[in-house]
């Protein structure tokens, strides 16, 4: 790793990193206020509507009516589409800005003329991006802790939310691997971002539709959302290590593919 490039990557994106992490924590607080203000009976009525139940089950990875506890409700904020959208936007922004963005802007000439091997460029950027993960997870957990304090929901088990945050980190790591891999293979930032969002859209669509259309159940294994099931963690009181393994391996495959291509590719003039 090259420390100067690692620092530069973090410095280039520090507003996004801190702003995004703060937004995620703030969202958890707001969400907990919102759910706390709703009567539990009202929530149960909504969950009796079949399509709402299916939709939330697809997002949470398990039937929420079986875990209608304050902790169960709090975990919903960790898997809410708004939360995931912030995280995904942050990852794609940094990953594409740091590799394909350099090619797109033409600054790769400066970077690649320094005595830093391509592998080191790739790993320095990757480590900088990966370092944002713990900050986001801590921000999520702190949001839950603040929300718990402010709403007086002392029944919320913060220990369980730590486990959910750990699983969240592996979703983040998978997305980092994929975004860096795609970024390393493209020459235009807009193309890289389009591909990454295409993958996310596919995964989200398959995950949601599989809740309504059983025929899609087998395809749903290709969706990374399937491997992020916070309610299962609440039910079992442990991280879903099989899902963690799938996310880690898939992310590593994308990352390695990106590294191989990045080391061998041409950097044409822009």
């Amino acid at each position, binding site marked *: 790793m090259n420390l100067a*490039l690692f620092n530069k990557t973090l410095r280039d994106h520090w507003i996004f990193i801190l702003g995004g992490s703060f937004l995620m924590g703030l969202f958890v607080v707001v969400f907990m206020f919102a759910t706390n203000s709703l009567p539990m009976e009202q929530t149960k009525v909504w969950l009796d509507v079949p399509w709402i139940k299916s939709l939330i089950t697809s997002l949470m990875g398990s039937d929420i009516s079986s875990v209608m506890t304050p902790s169960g409700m709090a975990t919903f904020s960790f898997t809410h589409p708004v939360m995931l959208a912030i995280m995904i936007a942050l990852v794609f922004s940094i990953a594409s800005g740091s590799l394909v963005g350099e090619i797109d802007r033409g600054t790769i000439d*400066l970077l690649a003329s320094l*005595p830093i091997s391509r592998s080191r460029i790739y790993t320095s950027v990757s480590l900088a991006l990966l370092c944002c993960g713990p900050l986001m997870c801590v921000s999520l957990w702190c949001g839950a802790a603040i929300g718990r304090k402010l709403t007086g929901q002392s029944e919320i088990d913060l220990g369980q939310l730590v486990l959910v945050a750990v699983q969240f980190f592996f979703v983040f790591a998978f997305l980092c691997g994929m975004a860096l891999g795609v970024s390393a293979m493209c020459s235009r930032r807009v193309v890289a971002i389009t591909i990454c969002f295409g993958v996310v859209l596919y995964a989200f669509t398959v995950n949601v539709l599989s809740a309504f259309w059983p025929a899609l159940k087998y395809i749903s294994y290709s969706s990374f959302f399937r491997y992020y099931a916070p309610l299962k963690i609440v039910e079992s009181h442990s991280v879903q290590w099989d899902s963690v393994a799938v996310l880690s391996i898939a992310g590593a495959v994308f990352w390695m593919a990106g590294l191989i291509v990045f080391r061998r590719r041409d950097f044409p003039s822009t």
Partner: protein
Amino acid sequence: MNVVEISNLAKTYGDVVALRDVSLTVPCGSRFGFLGPNGAGKSTTLRILLGLLRASGGSANVFGLDAWSESTEIRRRLAYLSGDARLYDGMTGIALLRFVDRARGGGGWREATRLCDRFELAAHRKIRGYSKGMRQKLAIIQTLMHKPDLLILDEPTSGLDPLMQQALYDELRAVTDEGRTVLFSSHTLSEVEQLCDRVAIVRSGRIVESGTTDSLRERALRRVVLKRSGGFPETLAVPDGMTIRSRQDGTMTGTWSGSVDPLVRWLSDLKLDDVSISPPSLEDLFATYYREEGNGGG
């Protein structure tokens, strides 16, 4: 000893041939000019030397190391200024120089400060607010600050005012005085003539001329303009080496190649009113190749 050795280098992009069979050597301590019109293959050659592009054929060695597989080792000893110097707009000039210094392992800060003074650069400002000339100065400073053994400069004077151009020439002369090497690409012939001691001319992905500046200048054509009241006879015999370009109202223009002795003897018999013989320049030699390319000669 040669710092750069290129042999039968080729680069293709699909069906497009960017370079074919390029061979050249750059001796240690020289100021080597790499001349050619836009799109001739200069930048492609330089990018291969830096390991930014992989050659499709042939070999490129810098400091005796392979330009692709050992490019990191090579880049420790060289610095590159790209033709269109793109910098990190969000940084200040100082932040960029510090980043480059740290990425290179340090040791270049004192020289960077000296160069900022030399090129009169206000490095504390954000690069986003820099003019083209200021960007170019900053790019030059980050290239020179670590005193590399080999400087590869792709059209470095672009955007510089004449005073700063002169300052750059002085710096580059100092570089070679210290035994270091400059490889300098340009399509501005006058600066290559002024600065370089060796030149290669590339056209359509091929080296068409290569040698010392003086030897190439000798092979360049002299422009000859003759004036004679009453005009020149249609049957005027001209010596070998003279090519008549035009005759009009007692004025005849042409070009001369080779030694001037036969030309002077011939002119002495013509009873001329006026004669003008311009010194040979690389521009003429370059224009010859450029014209051929324009005529489909590439």
